[in-house]
């Protein structure tokens, strides 16, 4: 990790105090996942998505921008005008997407660094691959569209929130697209599928129980284009069998359709507002 010389870095090797608070074992945590009435801690069913709020036109300097809230997860995405691809000598027929995924330093329980760490870099790549099939890249040859996703608060499922939000921001920036992309995160723990996990649930899905290696665990992020019924990105980690994966595919494609209705409404509102404004003029 190169040292960031431009900023005063905090002392190295600090750790969260949470490590020294009495912690529950994995089994106990697992029991806390569901309340007695088979609902999750925030009152959802296992396959229920959190409530979502979307707004366009948050960043006035950007060509297009969107803000998305998914429970406590908050994301801002801004999209900038196409510009020439820097440091490139040959001509490319297709345009390029440049995606940057960043957690704000204060967004997670543990403080993040200003520089992108490997998780953020990986998420940037997935964000790019999720959007690429949907954008008409041939419409702006030799140009690059910059997409910046900033997570203000991370309460789980932040990558899928960023994908959905980036899609709204692209539509707002009137970047030509074949279809809208919506993404859903699924968590698998103890052979149960949880849709749209919170940070707590997501951590349970990522961490594994050493004593019980049989049960499935992991995270699945699916980006889906519902008009053309195409999955633009399917990213899974952990250890999951085929049966649970095929189940997750069908569940998440259905959920993507529901989210699409929501962002459709948001985009239509934006268009109508713009149309009214130009009529008044």
């Amino acid at each position: 990790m190169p040292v960031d010389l431009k900023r005063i870095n905090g002392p190295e090797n600090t750790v969260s105090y949470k490590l020294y608070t009495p912690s529950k074992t994995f089994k106990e945590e697992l029991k806390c996942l569901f309340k007695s009435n088979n609902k999750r801690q925030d009152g959802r069913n296992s396959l229920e998505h959190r409530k979502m709020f979307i707004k366009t036109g948050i960043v006035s300097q950007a060509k297009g921008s969107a803000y998305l809230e998914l429970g406590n997860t908050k994301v801002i995405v801004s999209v900038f005008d196409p510009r020439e691809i820097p440091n490139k000598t040959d001509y490319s027929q297709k345009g390029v997407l440049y995606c940057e995924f960043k957690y704000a330093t204060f967004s997670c329980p543990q403080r993040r660094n200003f520089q992108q760490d490997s998780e953020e870099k990986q998420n940037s790549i997935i964000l790019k691959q999720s959007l690429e099939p949907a954008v008409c890249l041939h419409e702006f040859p030799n140009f690059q569209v910059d997409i910046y996703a900033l997570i203000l608060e991370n309460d789980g499922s932040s990558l899928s929130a960023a994908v959905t939000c980036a899609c709204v921001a692209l539509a707002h920036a009137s970047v030509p697209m074949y279809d809208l992309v919506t993404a859903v995160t699924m968590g698998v723990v103890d052979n149960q599928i949880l849709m749209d996990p919170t940070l707590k649930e997501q951590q349970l899905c990522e961490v594994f129980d050493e004593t019980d290696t049989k049960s499935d665990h992991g995270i699945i992020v699916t980006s889906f284009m519902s008009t053309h019924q195409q999955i633009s990105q399917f990213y899974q980690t952990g250890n999951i069998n085929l049966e649970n994966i095929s189940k997750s595919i069908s569940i998440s494609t259905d959920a993507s359709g529901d989210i699409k209705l929501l962002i459709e409404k948001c985009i239509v509102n934006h268009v109508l507002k713009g149309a009214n404004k130009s009529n008044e003029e």
Partner: protein
Amino acid sequence: MALCEAEKTFILHSVEENFRIDGRQRGDYRPMELETNIVAPSFGSARLRLANTDVLVSVKLEIDSPTLEQPKLGKIEFFVDCSANATPDFEGRGGDNLATEISNCLSSAYKSSTAFDAGKLCILKGSKCWKLYVDILLLECGGNLYDAVSLAVKAALWDTRIPLVKSVVVDGNKVDMEVSDELFDCERLDVTGAPIMVTVCKIGDQCIVDPTTAEEHCSGGSVVVAVSKSNFSTILQTGGGSLHPMTLLESLKLGQTVAQRLDSTLINTLKQINDNSTDVGFLK
């Protein structure tokens, strides 16, 4: 690599006919060559040649302290080096993106304890553990990098010998260790669950495995699956295309069966290497 429309159509038809341009069927691999224990200064190494793809993997061991979050786990890190020898495209920082993609994919595939038990690398809980540096050097690129890299990594890890720790003495806050210096005083890593990655490439309406560079150019999208035993440890779509949910499911099934077949072949081969270990040089 530049292909004209006619060449692309030819490849498309060849896949359709289940008789690919090099005579293989859709589910067939190209011939592979595997050598282990070829880099003297490292603890384990392997070189895999898959037709035109050539990968060299070396494992180095060092002592580190475990993270506070996971005091019982050792560490494993993957570094991919896309040298400009492989293809001129990697010149300068050209290969950086590909390198991060492959190393990220590897680390997420090895993250699960069922795939790779990092607990075995722990020497003393909370203070001392082994750290594995897995260095992957791409010597030549002839398509299908993910598969070749994962096979070579598994072979190199299988070849890795960890020196025995003779004694650990805890004296207050200080930890004193004695590690054996004997050449054969070492133990092997258990890598039976180490994931095998398979790239399933969609060309036309069919899915193929082990694509050549030319076939990769004709693909409308591909899926990389990392399979450990029978479960998936990582799935990632690459190649800039999108897939129908049904196609995705089919490619996952294909990837799973192919990975299991590859895995058993690899383990058998590795066992044979152990039996008749005649010295063969790097360039033979």
